[in-house]
């Protein structure tokens, strides 16, 4: 377990350009960013500022044109596809605005999905009972004990997001990336999900990278970065 203050995620000079028509469009103009263990960092900015792109680069889903992203002390984008997939699997938990659960799987199976991807068939079978117990515990903690074997289509938005949160936490990753986690929920439901998110973050001493439009939500984070037109224009300490 990292000490509080250790750097979990570090980005240096991240530039991202997209091909657009004849020319190229630069979305990120050299972003430097550090995220410490146990830190809550909110990323704010208007639409089109490059928040999502930055999130994808930091989440190892999109390769930067220039710059490095160090995760777990390794330059993630110089690794092989396999190794990078392994990093995503073990070191990052994603929570998306639209939950992104697999519709064919029930709540428990969705939560166990990271372990299914991580393990071979034999290993998973061996650990199956432990995995199920862990999934049940997570879901019960999130108040979903009565929804274990419902499919996403049978769950409300808030319930889905709680399942997604349980999935993100399943392999105990040190880094949690949340992209507008309450953007699709009403105020009360969103509040409940946030409570759970922050509580889990605190209990597990996770680093949280939160993208949001919501000023009040950002205020509850330890640090707020403002992104405008692909540049970080201001860093504010939050209340959290």
């Amino acid at each position: 377990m990292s000490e509080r203050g250790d750097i979990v995620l570090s980005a240096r000079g991240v530039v991202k350009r997209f091909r657009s028509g004849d020319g190229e469009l630069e979305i990120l103009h050299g972003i430097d960013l550090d995220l410490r263990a146990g830190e809550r960092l909110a990323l704010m900015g208007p639409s089109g500022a490059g928040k999502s792109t930055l999130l994808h680069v930091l989440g190892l889903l999109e390769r930067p044109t220039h710059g490095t992203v160090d995760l777990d002390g390794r330059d993630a984008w110089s690794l092989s596809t396999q190794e990078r997939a392994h990093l995503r699997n073990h070191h990052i938990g994603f929570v998306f605005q639209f939950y992104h659960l697999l519709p064919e799987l029930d709540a428990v199976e969705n939560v166990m999905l990271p372990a299914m991807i991580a393990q071979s068939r034999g290993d998973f079978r061996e650990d199956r009972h432990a995995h199920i117990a862990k999934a049940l515990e997570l879901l019960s903690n999130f108040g979903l004990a009565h929804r274990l074997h419902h499919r996403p289509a049978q769950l409300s938005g808030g319930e889905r997001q709680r399942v997604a949160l349980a999935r993100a936490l399943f392999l105990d990753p040190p880094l949690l990336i949340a992209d507008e986690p309450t953007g699709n929920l009403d105020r009360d439901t969103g509040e409940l999900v946030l409570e759970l998110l922050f509580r889990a973050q605190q209990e597990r001493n996770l680093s949280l990278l939160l993208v949001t439009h919501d000023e009040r939500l950002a205020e509850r984070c330890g640090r707020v970065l403002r992104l405008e037109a692909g540049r970080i224009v201001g860093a504010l300490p939050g209340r959290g």
Partner: protein
Amino acid sequence: MYRIFLSWRFLRSRRTNLIGVFGIFLAVGALILILSIMTGFLEETRRSARGSLSDLIITMPPYSESRRPRDPAPVLEVLRRDERVEGASAHLGWMCILTRQDERSLRILVDSQSSEIAGIKLTGIDPATEDNATEFRPSLDKVGRNDDGEIVAPRLRVANLDDPFAAPPDYDASVGRPRASVIVGEKVMTYHGLRRGSFITLMTAVPDPASDTGWSAKKREFVVAGCFRSGENEIDLERVYIDRGQLARFLAGVSEDDPVPEDSILYSEVLVKLKDYARDADDVRASIGASLYRSGLIDESCSIRTWEEFRGALLGAIENERVLMGIMLSLILVVAGFTIFAILSMMVTEKRRDIGILTALGATPRGVLVLFLLIGFWDALIGALSGALVGTWMAIKIDPFERWLSGTFGVQIFNREVYLFDSIPSVVTPIAVAAIVIGAFVCTLVFAAIPAWRAASLDPVEALRNE
């Protein structure tokens, strides 16, 4: 672990996959069924063609200038001495016209459009030595089936199997009545409306240097001793067996009880049956041909051929048909492959977001590729195995199945009269079944590989944006 688990879930959650599975099922089942029947046809045809033709046929035109012995005994002796030879028998063949004393004979003679009957191939044989060389004897007690496929009580086709040319038991062979008997093909029997004990008149021409035209006509009345069934349409329609000595007397124009004149024609071909045709045919043909030629028993006008050379065109045609059928039916497999391709492509498009989620959670592109390939694999597994089972089962049970179909819908699907097979021949070869199943797998996986590769090369970010 997620690949197998998810591929199975995806498969079950999309009913459209059943279309692909059904396509493979249909293609594999049809291929196995049709190819089994074609193989059966081929084998049955080979068998029936072989039954009447023997392994090797030495054709020896009787009117050559050479000084070959008139009697077949020396040739037969050389052949029987060879330990690879099972048996040998001399035949004398002669074309005739068959008539009898009723109107039907006239109708047959004036029917220029008939494809049913031409001349009669009168074949003189030695019943005693025939057993080892041809399937003459089995053809005398081969059972038949009626139109409903039921076995007609196996009745003896001749009165006495050991003396097939004996006249019917109650036959009154008094003076003035025919004393030589013939065994006619089953179809000759029905076509001319004959029974055991009926009389027929056979007419033909023989070379006669004394005559103006060089030929003189011969005719004689015979009694029908029975019939045979070779299983080959042409033979059962045209062949009439007679004792070789009686044929020689008929052609020489001497009475049935007189000795055969010395200068008469005694044989025109010698049929040889080998102990192991597949192994020895070519060797025996070469070595026997050489030794017969050295001893002056055959000359340039003679030929030694295997039975397959006689039926080459027919066997080749059926084999050809079988290959063509295989190719055409393989197209169903390709169509089934296209269906799998279309369904999987649809699925990849539909599942873009899920592919993105899996990638975000740590799946590699290769994992995604395998996941979608596995869906194709399950399609192939279910479709090919059930197709193989049902196809094999139907190929084995084709006869009762055909009878049930015919009975239920009142349409005759397999005409036993046309093919002269008592049942629909069908031979299931395990190697062919295995090849078809493997072919189905390869075809499906090749077609599944394209959408699977597309799924693997999806940009996860693009896929996740897809809301």
